[in-house]
């Protein structure tokens, strides 16, 4: 019989107790696995597609305020800028204003595709069709699947902001292509269509753009270019604020609330709870075994060996719960990724980093919960142990 067999047998000496402890640990790691992965996914979603030499120019008052169309050429002329494109938020929806809203931008197809070709992947034929069809629209694969859209079909896309001169609030658009992301897990829940088609037909805010995307010669020039752009429009009716793409999307995400803080609080509360439960139960379990430890020491088990065995038992217990909990959360996350709500987050699956972090947490939890019983076993003299209990 190896030490491991002995540890294993000890762990299951009272199967019900061990099962209950495993359930407690399982639940804490379930919370850890799901919340941390959601947090990582959100973080990645705002960072995905963010290329380090891309900047976003928006109106300094707020990004919902627009800027004159003429800004595009003025931005393009600034030294260090290698490419420019622009987009207008459309408040797009399909048929049902409440239930089927999605991201929709009016863009300039040629310059947009030149910069974002990796984020919206199309076949050459689709790309060509989008460039030439004035009423063309490219739709993300998730959206095409959800509404059963096919290439060549004409669909009415409505806006909760704009209307046409004839009072209609929807525009007929012909699907030029269905795009996928750079990775199969990237979110594809947006549509893009021609700025010129919309601009000619809207009743207000004509010749205005929402945000301008700028590509710089290299990331080192970002700061200098951003400052030059903002200086260019200083003291004008539409001053600008230029930041890198990642900063822009992070700030937007943070508007919902400090998710990091909430996740940290909940995960800490869950772990504080199991820490209390597991450590006190292990202390009382070890107390029942005092006599046995005395016998083991009498038989020649060294004190460090007894210490290792007690700690081993605690680590084994927490790892068991952790592996099951992390496994279950990975399973749930996979299911969530495929749901309509989850697909907006892109790849929800558990990253190796989260899994490793979870295992590290499990080992630390085992060492902490095992510390008190292990130390008392280490210090216990044979006489004392055999006399007690």
């Amino acid at each position, binding site marked *: 019989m190896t030490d491991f067999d002995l540890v294993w047998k000890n762990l299951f000496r009272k199967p019900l107790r061990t099962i209950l402890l495993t359930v407690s640990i399982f639940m804490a790691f379930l919370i850890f696995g799901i919340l941390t992965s959601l947090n990582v996914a959100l973080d990645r979603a705002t960072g995905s597609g963010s290329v380090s030499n891309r900047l976003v120019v928006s109106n300094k008052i707020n990004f919902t305020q627009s800027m004159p169309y003429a800004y595009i050429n003025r931005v393009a002329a600034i030294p260090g800028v290698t490419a420019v494109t622009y987009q207008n938020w459309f408040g797009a929806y399909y048929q049902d204003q409440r239930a089927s809203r999605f991201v929709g931008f009016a863009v300039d197809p040629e310059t947009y595709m030149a910069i974002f070709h990796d984020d919206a992947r199309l076949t050459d034929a689709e790309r060509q069709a989008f460039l030439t069809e004035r009423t063309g629209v490219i739709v993300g694969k998730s959206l095409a699947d959800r509404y059963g859209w096919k290439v060549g079909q004409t669909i009415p896309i409505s806006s909760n902001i704009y209307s046409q001169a004839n009072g209609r609030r929807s525009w007929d658009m012909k699907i030029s292509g269905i795009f996928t992301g750079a990775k199969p897990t990237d979110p594809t829940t947006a549509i893009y269509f021609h700025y010129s088609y919309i601009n000619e037909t809207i009743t207000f805010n004509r010749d205005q753009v929402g945000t301008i995307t700028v590509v710089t010669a290299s990331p080192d020039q970002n700061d200098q270019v951003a400052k030059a752009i903002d200086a260019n429009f200083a003291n004008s009716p539409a*001053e600008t604020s230029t930041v890198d793409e990642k900063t822009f999307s992070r700030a937007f995400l943070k508007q919902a609330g*400090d998710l990091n803080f909430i996740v940290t609080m909940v995960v800490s509360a869950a772990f504080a709870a199991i820490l209390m439960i597991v450590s006190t139960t292990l202390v009382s379990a070890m107390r029942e075994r005092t006599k046995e430890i005395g016998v083991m020491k009498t038989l020649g088990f060294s004190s460090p060996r007894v210490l290792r065995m007690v700690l081993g038992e605690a680590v084994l217990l927490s790892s068991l719960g952790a592996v099951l909990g992390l496994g279950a959360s990975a399973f749930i996350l996979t299911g969530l990724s495929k749901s309509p709500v989850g697909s907006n987050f892109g790849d929800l699956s558990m990253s190796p980093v989260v899994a490793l972090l979870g295992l590290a947490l499990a080992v630390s939890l085992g060492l902490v919960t095992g510390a008190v019983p292990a130390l008392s076993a280490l210090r216990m003299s044979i006489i004392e142990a055999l006399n007690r209990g």
Partner: protein
Amino acid sequence: MSLLNQTGSVIAMNVRSIPQRLWMSLATVGSIALVVAVLLGFLALANGFNQTLKGSGAPDVAIVLRDGAASELNSVVSREQIDLLGQGPGVRAAPDGRPLISAELVLIVDGIKKSTGTKANMPLRGIGPNGLLVRPQAKITQGRMFTPGSNEIVVGAGLLREFSGFELGKTLRFGAQTWKVVGVFEAPGTVFESELWADAPVIQSLFKRGSTFQTARVGLTSPAAMPAFVAYVKKEQRLQLKAQSEQTYFADQAERSGLIIKYFGWPLGIIMAIGALAGALNTMYASVSSRAAEIATLRVIGFSGFSAFIGTMVEALVLSALGALVGVGICALGFNGLSASTLGSGFTQVAFRLQIGPDIITQAVTLALIIGLIGGIFPGLRASQQRPLLALAT
């Protein structure tokens, strides 16, 4: 000895023996307290947000938006439409004798969220003299109201609490224009406290809005006048607008937004509760096994199995009730009244306070007692079914 007396003494014995299993019992209390605190934290968040939205709507004020617009931001209302609204039935007269209609427009400006240090959307609302008459809750508490026709802003106390950039006396730049913050207003428990207010005509001209507005708030003679006014707006072909009571408008928003927090809080609370339940079961089984000899003795001298069951049950319930008490205490002292903010459905920030109330405390305490109940039943059954002689023999 009657069953009642028997049970009473066993309960007393059980509860008095808790200190013998002090650490495990404390762990049970502590873990249940954490479950209650986490659930209550989420519910207080949802509750505070909902109460703020619900507190904002008056039953005798109609809010009129473009038909189909989901929020004020996407709505357009013209001067002519405002005049037509004034001819509707049941419209109250303002002190100047004209219909009490507040024509308003809302645009978004940047503020800095204090908790994250990042930019956030602040609503800058243009109002006229009637703006305060349809919001009787709002009062200037520092400085003064803006002077009509000038670039002056008053800031809501809630916004000031959560965001920086709009402190009293500060000069702001929007585009080429400078504005001055001249006053702070309070409108406790409403979304308006998260807004910036300025003179509507000034905003129209400086932000190139021509003579258009986005919404109209119409004061009615009484809540009973609402249906007739709503029907008038629907029927009048020249309007193409939609009226609803402000109360309904905000209640609808509360329902949609509050759900997200609730659907996040309950699953987490339940997962944690199952974890704590496993801990409680362990503690109670340990209690039963440590008292095996005691229970057996009682059975031998004529106590019923039922009293052993109830004794264990009550011990579990006492532990969970203590846990609930501590959990509610943590929330009441630590979270209640805490200021928070999130993006509301108007695409602008809403500042609110976490709010615990009797209904959500009841929900969280119920969850704790369910843990105690289940945590007591099974160990209790074991206690009642223990065979006395066998237990004494070992």
